[in-house]
């Protein structure tokens, strides 16, 4: 069993997102380490891009700060290596837009990411239709596929058929960011996805509180928390302490649901 498969041994899992370089590189590495060692089962490690068109204001602003402080793809990959050195053993998935990867060089990017200790990729602007170039170089490392409430059944089937790692189910139409309520239709949506795949189904976009995480965790195999995590930790005077607490709270909200 690889790191990613082991992570799903106990479901539902808690999957926070945090961008490298925010509020600065050193702090972001400490934060991700703290999340990893205090309850996160998998972390989406964010790569920054100047034009993050799938992201809401919180992540836009954080990645903008990271860029202003000088984050690059190269520094981000070195940071992943550093996290492994510090004994972070949970899966780390790189989440970023396609252009910086192209600029770095796809072959080099994929090779360096693997060497650094990455377990997979999430690329929001690379739908199945455009994934061939990346996949021909990538080989067997999971390129996590996203499904949306707007995906019709035939697309769901085509996308889910070859899904590796897990399915990233976007719970609402929209950009990343907290929502007041969990969608009523989420159960039906997850059931639709499950009819096409046995891969774990993780839900993201709009989950901001441990209570919402618990609601979603009753239905899904994993709960993805992005904007709320970035906002809470980013606005804290003691980001690392806040990260520990944040991870522990979400973990405990989900622990009761574990079989």
């Amino acid at each position: 069993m690889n790191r990613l498969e082991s992570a799903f041994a106990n479901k539902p899992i808690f999957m926070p997102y945090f961008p490298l370089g925010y509020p600065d590189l050193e702090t972001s590495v400490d934060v991700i380490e703290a999340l990893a060692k205090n309850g996160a089962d998998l972390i989406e490690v964010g790569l920054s891009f100047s034009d993050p068109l799938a992201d809401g204001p919180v992540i836009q602003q954080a990645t903008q700060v990271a860029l202003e402080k000088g984050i690059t793809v190269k520094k981000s990959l070195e940071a992943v290596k550093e996290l492994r050195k510090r004994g972070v053993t949970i899966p780390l998935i790189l989440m970023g837009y396609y252009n910086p990867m192209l600029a770095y060089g796809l072959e080099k990017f994929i090779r360096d990411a693997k060497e650094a200790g990455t377990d997979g990729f999430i690329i929001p602007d690379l739908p199945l239709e455009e994934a061939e170039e990346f996949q021909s170089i990538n080989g067997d490392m999971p390129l996590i596929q996203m499904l949306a409430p707007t995906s019709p059944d035939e697309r769901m089937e085509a996308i889910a058929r070859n899904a590796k790692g897990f399915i990233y189910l976007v719970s609402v139409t929209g950009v990343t960011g907290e929502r007041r309520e969990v969608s009523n239709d989420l159960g039906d949506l997850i059931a639709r996805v499950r009819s096409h795949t046995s891969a774990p189904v993780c839900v993201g976009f709009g989950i901001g509180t441990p209570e919402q995480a618990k609601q979603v965790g009753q239905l899904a195999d994993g709960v993805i928390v992005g904007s709320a995590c970035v906002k809470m930790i980013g606005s804290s005077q003691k980001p690392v302490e806040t990260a520990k607490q944040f991870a522990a709270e979400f973990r405990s909200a989900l622990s009761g649901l574990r079989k």
Partner: protein
Amino acid sequence: MSTTLLPHKFGPYGGQFVPETLMPALIELESEFVSARNDPTFNQEFDKLMASFVGRPTPLTYAKRLSEKLGGAQIYLKREDLAHTGAHKINNALGQALLVKRMGKTRIVAETGAGQHGVASATAAALLGLECVVYMGSVDIARQEPNVFRMKLLGAEVRPVESGTKTLKDAINEAIRDWVTNVRDTHYLLGSALGPHPYPTIVREFQSVIGREAREQMLMDAGRLPDTVIACVGGGSNAIGVFSGFVNDEAVELIGVEAGGSGIASGKHAARFGDATKARVGVIHGTRTYVLQDEDGQIAETHSVSAGLDYAAVGPEHAMLRDNERAFYTSATDEEALNAFQTLCHTEGIIPALESSHAIAEVIKKAPTMRKDQVILVNLSGRGDKDLNTVIKEMGNG
């Protein structure tokens, strides 16, 4: 599973680099567009609006005094500045708005740089009874104030964009974010020949009326095809529209003019084809094309005196035309464009948009190198009333 109805790439360029939430909308849009183009009723309705509302065909004007002044080729202007709302943008805005009605959607969002596409979208929305939200960078709002007021008069909501560079690229980001949120009832009325497939094709098709008319008018008025066709290129919709009429006439030279800003060497420009140090093939706003970017793949800030050309990427079909050398691309600086602006005012009694002034600037360079029996056709894509504040500021009060 990549089975699009229409070709989704232009050589290695184009494609559909968008979040999954939008893929079904792009597939629906393509299928609706294909069925509309095969539907005589749709085409009749479009043609009727082009004639009775937009005022097409727009005239072809022989620029006698400009030709004499430059002393070389004879110059003809395709007068898109005389189309309703003052620019070519209305052709595409009305075409897409008719598609929106067909799809049963009720709301459109649009981006705008110079404001011309925003005004065109607001106009189409008012005419067809659609709700309209226009995203516009706050920098552009400041320099295109008259158009902001126009959009509001036409019933559109103008939402200022404060993120990133606060210009066209950021307005596109916000329009896409709105679209991804409201995709079930909202259409993104993209104004240039860029973005994910099928937009570059749809926009070209609705703008191809420029090239079709111009070709016929050239044959009628000058008795021949032009030797050279010149158009400015931001995203590239007016250029692709006029080029499409001549692309199969191999002897006709096609020239696109990018924004040279303060000069290529200054780094402050929007010349995607002109600056090999900053422009590389990349992916932005759903399409693969030439993109001005830094070495880490972050999209570069651009500069142009004309908001409509101030964009870091170029439409994917232009990238292909450039690679296969069917078209050539050059640039004009802010200063050259402002001089061309004045020249056209004085010699022809026409106040051109600053965007179109870039094309005129190339005419001023090119015409004197040509013989008097040769002919240049330039697409005068828009009128300059919207730019008066900028021009007054740039030229002083003299």
